[in-house]
């Protein structure tokens, strides 16, 4: 797909704890370098915004240099700079936006402030080629749980539903704590669940039949905690694998059910799943099963592209360049609650 006249785009992502720098040429990924401050947050049981912001400032230059080295390029080869302008942690976003403005100004190239969620959608093109128009996207991570209708990722993204309380990944973290598993909880729950049965305990599925495309995971999280506490109070051992598997099944059941309802409701035959929770093996398996049954094509980027990264921002930047979208000004703010309807600022 790559031709030498496609623009080389540098993408910067700092919405949470990962300092991500990616470089693409069109939709060909040249580098995707990440510095994570997760180790520093783990002992706090969650991402500490000030710790993340400090780490972004320390990590940005080395990560940019690392990405350039991986791509075999120099800064002067960059044709455009894209950056996550929101949503995310305000102080963390601000470091990335300041860096992107300085790189764009210093190199004399256009700047594109982009929406983090749209970037999660755009990244799949680096692995699976152009996105079908339209597509339905399910984005699930520690920070978001959203269902989107995507007529055109560079210009038009519509929110169909989102969580009314906790993000899906947040529920994984909280249940992991209840079970004495480390932070972040997702991979540990996934692993423990492999030894248990998803049908062992009938945990509640929030908003299962309410007709909306919204999610709710707070009741589920509390139900798991109650169940575990009752076992402990009775002096009985907690069957961690069964609890993990049954909790995971409840989350994944709701996510895939609503995603396929969205496909049916809008007559869309392509479903994309992104975000850190897309790495969950049971989510991938059940989504594939239900998509096959419904005749829907499923696209899930590989795990390294599902979690927050710079290549996803660069990929969306490349789409904006290709679509002839007006670049951002140097005045753009970082917007911690940037709505998904704003693909670029």
């Amino acid at each position, binding site marked *: 797909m790559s031709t030498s006249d496609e623009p080389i785009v540098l993408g910067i992502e700092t919405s949470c704890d990962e300092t991500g720098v990616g470089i693409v040429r069109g939709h060909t990924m040249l580098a995707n370098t990440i510095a994570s401050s997760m180790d520093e947050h783990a002992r*706090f049981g969650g991402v500490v915004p000030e710790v993340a912001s400090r780490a972004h400032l320390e990590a*940005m*230059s080395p990560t940019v240099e690392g990405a350039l080295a991986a791509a075999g390029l120099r800064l002067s080869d960059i044709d455009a700079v894209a950056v996550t302008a929101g949503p995310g942690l305000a*102080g963390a976003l601000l470091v990335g936006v*300041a*860096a992107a*403005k*300085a790189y764009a100004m210093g190199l004399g190239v256009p700047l594109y402030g982009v929406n983090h969620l749209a970037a999660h959608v755009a990244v799949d093109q680096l692995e699976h080629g152009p996105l079908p128009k339209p597509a339905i996207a399910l984005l699930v991570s520690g920070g978001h749980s959203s269902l989107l209708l995507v007529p055109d990722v560079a210009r038009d993204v519509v929110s169909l539903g989102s969580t009314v309380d906790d993000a899906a990944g947040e529920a994984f973290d909280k249940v992991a704590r209840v079970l004495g598993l480390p932070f972040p909880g997702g991979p540990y729950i996934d692993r423990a669940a492999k030894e248990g049965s998803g049908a062992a305990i009938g945990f509640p599925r929030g908003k299962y039949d309410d007709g909306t495309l919204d999610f709710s995971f707070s009741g589920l999280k509390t139900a798991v905690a109650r169940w575990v506490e009752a076992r402990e109070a009775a002096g009985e051992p907690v069957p961690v694998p069964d609890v993990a598997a049954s909790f995971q099944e409840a989350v994944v059941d709701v996510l895939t059910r609503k995603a396929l309802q969205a496909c049916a409701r809008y007559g869309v035959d392509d479903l994309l799943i992104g975000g850190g929770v897309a790495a969950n093996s049971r989510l991938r398996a059940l989504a594939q099963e239900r998509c096959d049954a419904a005749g829907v094509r499923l696209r899930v980027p590989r795990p390294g592209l599902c979690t927050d990264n710079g290549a996803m921002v660069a990929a969306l930047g490349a789409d904006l360049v290709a679509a002839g979208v007006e670049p951002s*000004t140097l005045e753009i703010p970082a917007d911690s609650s940037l709505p998904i309807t704003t693909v670029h600022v």
Partner: protein
Amino acid sequence: MRIRPAAQRLRLTSVLVLAFDTATPAVTAALHDGARVIAESTTIDARRHGELLAPAVQQVLRAAGAELGDVTAIVAGTGPGPYTGLRVGLMTATALASTAGVPALGVCTLDALAYAAETDGPFLVATDARRKEVFWARYGDRRTRLDGPRVDRPQDLPGELPVVGAGGRMYAETIGAGRVTGPEHPSAGAMAALAAEHLAPLSAGEVAEIARVPEGRVDSVEKASGLGVLGPARPIYLRRPDAQVPGAPKRVTA
């Protein structure tokens, strides 16, 4: 914004220091040609550092008829100051410097305020640290920091010395109105002039060595005690992040 005639651009061949500071409510940027400030822009807005700084840098370059490629050193205020704004300046300096192939240097924001002080003899500089505290340092004269920077409550500031900066002004009742003196906010012009003074005798290799960021994470809390005027473009935080290591999960059943 204060602009001098573009004719002075003739001097640009030798030295052109670009300085900016975002560690206080002032977003300030300036160019200094080794002899004088040739362009300066200052806007007071505590909440929009990220939006105002890059345009301000563009503005001073344009006003001086200069390009980023003409700049020989970039200097940013290292604080101490509220962290979100502070990082905007330091990140901008580091990234801009890498595109221009020049060193990114840091100057303590309080030193820049001291350099512009309207007082002779010993004095204190204090800025707003929020949470009813001030960032402060003690100076023997405009060029000489003797102690600090530190963060303390205004009633704990030492002695009877005059207090330069917003930290004195906002706590005038506590410290005594007679001690308050100007300026209120740092100016990038003063920061650039101070930096240019210290850069003048240095070789390119010596400047590069000062700008070099040590390997690994810099613990800026410890580093803040250094009294040299020029350093790497790294923040002086003086406070550790607010974060609690959690205990056991809260029970949901009584």
